[in-house]
């Protein structure tokens, strides 16, 4: 599904990209949703060596906590809300993450290539 802010964000990125000189580029943003306690997509591919931001939309009514111990990230996302989670540049590899409140079913992995 198309993210609510995907278009504005892309436009902003384009604007900044054209207006600002190289080096000041917006970090890559990747939308992700939680529905019925599943991540969609549950496999997120990112380029290695570049910082990026996950925009996680919780489409369930209940709160969820995005957590990646490996990447030192934990963030509560209220039901129906979205949150952005900033990641530093990664080395190539696989980095699992979970929804801590439903850890056995809410799972995903970030793959840096």
């Amino acid at each position, binding site marked *: 599904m198309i993210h609510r802010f995907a278009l504005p964000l892309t436009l902003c990125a384009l604007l900044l990209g054209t207006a600002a000189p190289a080096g000041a580029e917006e970090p890559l943003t990747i939308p992700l949703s939680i529905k019925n306690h599943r991540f969609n997509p549950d496999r997120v591919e990112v380029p290695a060596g570049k910082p990026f931001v996950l925009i996680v939309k919780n489409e*369930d*009514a*209940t*709160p*969820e*906590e995005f957590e990646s*111990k*490996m990447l*030192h*990230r934990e*963030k*509560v*996302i*209220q*039901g129906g*809300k979205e*949150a*952005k*989670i*900033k990641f*530093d540049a990664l080395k190539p590899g696989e980095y699992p993450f979970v929804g*801590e*409140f*439903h*850890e*056995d079913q809410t799972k995903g992995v970030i793959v840096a290539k």
Partner: protein
Amino acid sequence: MIAALVIVFREVLEAALVVGIVLAATRGLAGAGRWVGVGIAGGLGGATFVALFAGSIADALEGYGQEVFNAGVLLLAVAMLTWHNAWMTTHGRQMAQEMREVGQAVQSGQRPLAVLALVVGLSVLREGSETVLFLYGLATGEGGLSDALTGGALGLAIGFLAGSSLYLGLLRIPSRYLFSVTSWMITLLAAGMAAQAITFLSAADLLSIGEVLWDSSTILSQESLPGRILHTLIGYMDRPTSVQAAAYVATLALIYGATLLASTLSRDTRRAPVTVRRE
């Protein structure tokens, strides 16, 4: 129900260990129990408040409100623990002496009690707000209220047990060493909190978290029970980064410096005891 138990236990564990250390550190001070009680109650009230406004907090500061809030709470606790250790350097020996002489609780330690009560409150606040949100989700969602309450109560009870065990264990230490031991524990607790605050600051895009220094997750995972306990007590991390390690070491240095400064100042003015240790 098991999910509720596990999550509530995890959240309660950290706060319970902090309470255990604080209770041991304030042993023999009049009103210690009451102050800690005030801290816990204040923390619970604050946690409910934070949970209610979690949405607004999360949306604040360009979407990084939650991270900045957590970092702020942790850094405030670090500052309070630093102050406490510096205060104890100058007053601890006198208090210990007084305690031995009268053989009962002393009145002179009300200020550190208030500070430590705040630390307890901050720990409960941070861990508690997530617990409240989780239980709320469970109660309104799939599990139902009874599931949330049963699991939550069991998790709370086991967490309480862990905190009590630590406290009772610390009480077995002869009282002449107890102050030194709790001072050290508070120092390590603060250093671990500072490293954790770095994690939140980097998550808020305010600083870089640095390179991972080592990975000992196969030897002792931070997610295992001993890993979690050590994470709280001494700040153990299975994949620490350079900036986290720097914050850890800087906090150790800060507390050492603060106690040194406090004892120097008090020696200048009152010819008070010089050393940190209380034999």
